[in-house]
C-alpha cells in the first residue's frame, strides 16, 4: 500500500520525520517497527508538544492521509464492482476481451494502443484468454490514481471533427466519415462503423452535423 511507504525506514523518510519533529528527540526511533498509524500519531503528539504550528500541519497531513486512504478504498470498491459485472463464473477472472469495456467504464479513455499496453501489464506470462482480478487491481488502481487516459473534453472533440472537415462546412458526408473512421487512426470495424452511422447520420442529408452529434451524445452520457 502506497501510504505506508511514507513511514518506511528509507533515509529520505526518516530524515523528513526528523526535520518535522524539529528538536530530533525521537531521531533514534526506528519508524519501520511502528505501524504507519502509530508513527503518524506519535509524530502528531510529539509535534504538538514541541510546536503548535507543526501540530496543525501534521493534522492536515494526517487528515489528507486518511482521506487518501478512504479514496483508495473507494477506488478499490469501484474497480471490484466493474470487474465483477463481467466475472460471469464468479471466480475473479474476466474474459480478456471485456477488459477494454471495464477500463473505459471506470472513467478512462485510452486509445487502442494504450489499451494494448495496459493489457500487457495485466495478462499472465502465458496468455490464457482470461485476466485475473489480482493482477488487474493494482494496475487499474495506479491508472486511476495517476488520472491517466482522461476523457476528452467536448471542445477538443469538436476541434478534431473540424480538422477532418477541412472545408469548414460544419458537417461531414457519410462517405467522408466512413473513410476517416475506417482508414485513419485506429480503424473501426464494420460493426463499429455501422453502429456509429445509425445514430450519427441524418438520413435526409446523408451527412453528420458533428456539433449537434456531439451535443446529443454528451447529453446521453449524463
Amino acid at each position, binding site marked *: 500500500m502506497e501510504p505506508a511507504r511514507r513511514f518506511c525506514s528509507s533515509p529520505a523518510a526518516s530524515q523528513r520525520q526528523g526535520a518535522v519533529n524539529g528538536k530530533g528527540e525521537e531521531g533514534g526511533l526506528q519508524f519501520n517497527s511502528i505501524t504507519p498509524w502509530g508513527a503518524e500519531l506519535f509524530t502528531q503528539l510529539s509535534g504538538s508538544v514541541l510546536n503548535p504550528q507543526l501540530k496543525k500541519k501534521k493534522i492536515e497531513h494526517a487528515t489528507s492521509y486518511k482521506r487518501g486512504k478512504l479514496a483508495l478504498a*473507494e477506488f478499490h*470498491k*469501484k474497480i471490484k*464492482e*466493474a470487474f*465483477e*459485472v*463481467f466475472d*460471469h*463464473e464468479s*471466480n475473479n477472472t474476466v474474459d480478456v476481451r471485456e477488459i*477494454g*469495456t*471495464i*477500463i*473505459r*467504464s471506470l472513467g*478512462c*479513455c*485510452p*486509445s*487502442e494502443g494504450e489499451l494494448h499496453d495496459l493489457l500487457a501489464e495485466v495478462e499472465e506470462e502465458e496468455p490464457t484468454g482470461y485476466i485475473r482480478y489480482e493482477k488487474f487491481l493494482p494496475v487499474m488502481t495506479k491508472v486511476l490514481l495517476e488520472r491517466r487516459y482522461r*476523457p*476528452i473534453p467536448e471542445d*477538443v*472533440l469538436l*476541434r*478534431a*471533427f473540424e*480538422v*477532418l472537415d*477541412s472545408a469548414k462546412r460544419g458537417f461531414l458526408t457519410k462517405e467522408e466519415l466512413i473513410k*476517416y*473512421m475506417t482508414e*485513419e*487512426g*485506429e*480503424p*473501426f470495424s464494420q460493426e*463499429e462503423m*455501422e*453502429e*456509429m452511422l*445509425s*445514430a450519427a447520420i441524418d438520413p435526409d442529408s446523408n451527412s453528420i452535423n458533428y456539433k449537434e452529434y456531439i451535443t446529443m*451524445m454528451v447529453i*446521453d*452520457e449524463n
Partner: protein
Amino acid sequence: MGSSTSIHHHFAFQNAEKAFKAAILIQRWYRRYVARLEMRRQCTWSIFQSIEYAGQQDQVKLHDFFSYLMDHFTPDSHQEKEFLDRMFTEERFPQEAEMEKYSDYESIEVPDSYTGPHLSFPLLPDHATALVEAFRLKQQLHARYVLNLLYEARKHLAQLPNINRLSTCYSEEITVCGDLHGQLDDLIFIFYKNGLPSPERAYVFNGDFVDRGKDSIEILMVLFAFMLVYPKEFHLNRGNHEDHLMNLRYGFTKEVMQKYKVHGKKILRILQDVFCWLPLATLIDEKVLILHGGVSDRTDLELLAKLDRHKIVSTLRYKIRKENDRQTEEKRKAHQTSSAQTSTPWFLPQSRSPPSLPFHLGSDKAHKASLSSSVPCSALLEHTELAWLGRRSVDQELERCQQRASFPGIWEKEEPLPQTSEAHTVPGELPEPTLQEWRQVVDILWSDPMMQEGCKANTVRGGGCYFGPDVTEQLLQKYNLQFLIRSHECKPEGYEFCHNRKVLTIFSASNYYEVGSNRGAYVKLGPSLSPYIVQYQANKATHMLTMRQRISRVEESALRALREKLFAHSSDLLDEFKKHDADKTGLITLTDWAAAVESVLHLGLPWRMLRPQLVNSSMNNTLEYRSWLKDLAKEQLSRENIQSSLLETLYRNRSNLETIFRIIDSDHSGFISLDEFRQTWKLFSSHMNIDITDDCICDLARSIDFNKDGHIDINEFLEAFRLVEQSSSEGQAADCPQSTNANDNGCSSSGAP
C-alpha cells in the same frame, strides 16, 4: 522550387498527421461511449437475472411458511380446521374414469356466433397451419376444440417412449428450439423464417412452452396440432414449467382461467395429465442429446428410458401417483373426511434434495417436532407402519407425526404402502417411481452448466444441480455422444456454447425480460450434425432504435423493477441506514448506502454503478436517506389510505401471496371469501412477524370487496395493488416480427463443436 515542394510536403505531412490524430481522438472517444453502453447493458442484465432467481428462491420461503403453519398452528374452530384442511389437502389426481369425464368435449356446443378456427379430427396439416394463422390474427380457439386436441395429444404422447430418437437420414434438417414461455410472436416468427413443420423439416421443442408470457395456451395448441399431424417429425420435450404447480405461480393457470372462464378447470385438469406424458429427452442420430435443463453426475439414461414418466407428476415435489387409489378413495369416503394424507402435504419440500441443500428438513424439523407434538411419535406408530418405516425417510415420518399431533381427527391411520416397491415387483409390472427415479427427472429438467468442474446442488433454483465440464465429458463418453443441447436459461444472444462447445444452450423467447433485452435463437442440424444457429428478435420496434435507445428502454424497465424491490424492503433499509448514521444526522455517505443496500437485498449487484440512476438527490457524496425512501414510496403507492408498511409487505411477498391465494381458491373460481382472506392474512402475517392489526386487515378486505358481496376477486385484489406483473404490453406494438439487422444478409452461424 525544391524548397517549396519540401514545404508543401511538410504541410501535407502535417495535415495527414493531424487528420490521423483527429481520427484517433474521435475513435477513442466513441469507443469509450460504446463501452459505457455495454456496461449499462450488462448491469441491466444482472438486475433482471438476480431478481428472477431471487423470485425462485421465494418458492423456498413459501415452503417455509407452510412448514411454519404445520408446526405452530392449531386450529381452534371448525371453520379454521376446514380452511386449513383445504390448504393442506392434496389435489386428487384424475383417475382414468375421471379423465374420460374431463375430456368430455363432445357435449360442449360451439355456438354459431363463434368466429374462431374450427378443428376436426384426425387433424390435417391445413388445420394446423390455419391454427397458426388464426392465432396470429388474435383469435381464440373454442374450449371444445382445446379439449379435443388435448385428448388426442394425450393419446399420442402416451405411446411415446421417454427418450425419442430422430435420425437425419429420415429428416434431412432438424430444427431445435428452446424456451418459448408463452411468447407466441416468437413461435410464429420461427415458422415464418424457418418454415412450417413438414416431413422434410423436423422440429424439436425443448420444453418451457408455457408460463410468464401471455399466449401459453395458444402455443400449446399449435405445438400439439403439429405433433399430431407430423408425429414422426415433430417432437416435444418436457420442461420444468410443464408442471401444474409451476403454472400456479408463473401465470399459465391464470391465463387459462381468464381465457376459458367456463371450461378452464377441465382444461387445466387434462393439461396436468398431458404434461406428465411429455417425453423427457430426444436423441438425434444417437449422438446429440436434447433435454431441457442439463445433467448431473448421476444421470443414468438407461434408468431414464425405463421409468414410468407419467407417474412423475411434478418435479417440485416427490409425490407418487398410485394405481390403487381407488381403494383409498373408498376408504376415505367411508370415513367422511375431506381427504386423507398418505404423504406429506404437496407443497412442502420432501426429502428430495441432495444433502447439501439448505432446506429445513432433517434436524430442524426433528427439533420442531419434539417441541410441538404433545404425544411422543413412537406411540403413534403401529406395527404395520413400522414395517414400511424402512422405506420412508425419517423426515417424512416425523412430518406425519406432527400432522397427527397438530390436527387430531383429520388424519386417519396410515394405510401401509402398497407392496409395489422394487423389492416386491410383480414380474412384468413397472415399479413405482422411486426417489431415485424422481431425482433423475429433476436433474435433467432443472440443472444448469457451470464453468467449474464438479457437480453441486443448484441452490439458486432449488432443484437439480450445477454441472461442470467434467460431468458433461463423462456423460458424453459413457453414452458415446457428441454434444448436448439444452435450454432453461435465458441468454443475451439467444444461445451460448460452453464446456468446450460440448453444451449448447438454446433459448427461443426473445425480449424475455423486456422489449430489447435479448435475442432468441434456434439451431439447425443436418446429417453432419454441425449446429447452425439463427438469431432473431421478434419486435419491429426495437429494429428501428439505436443501440443506446434499445439499452435505455430495457434499462428503465430493470430499474423500475429494482426500485420496486427497494421499496419493498423500506423498513429494513431504514434500519440499516440508521446503523451507518450513529450521529443521527439523517445523512449517510454513498459508500455506506451501497453497503447497506447490498446487505439488505442480497442481490450482488454493482450498486455504485447503478447509484446515479437510483439516487438523484445526493449532495457532496452524501444522501438524506429518509427523503430518498419517501421518494421511492411515492412512486409505488397507489392507495394512500392503506398503511404503507402493509403495502410494503404485500409487495415483498407478492408472488407468494398470489400463489397462496390460488391455493386457497382450490376450485379455481377466482374468488375467495372475505373470511378466507382474513384468515390467510392473519396466518401469513403471524408467520412473517408483521404487526398488523385485525382492524387494518378488515379494512383492507372490505376495501377490496368492491361489490360488497362478501367475496374477493383475486385478480381484482392483485390488480388493485399493482401486484399483477405487467404483461409486456409494449411488445404488442409490433405487427410483424423482424430479425435484427445483423441477420438480414443471412444467418449468424457457428461451426461444429
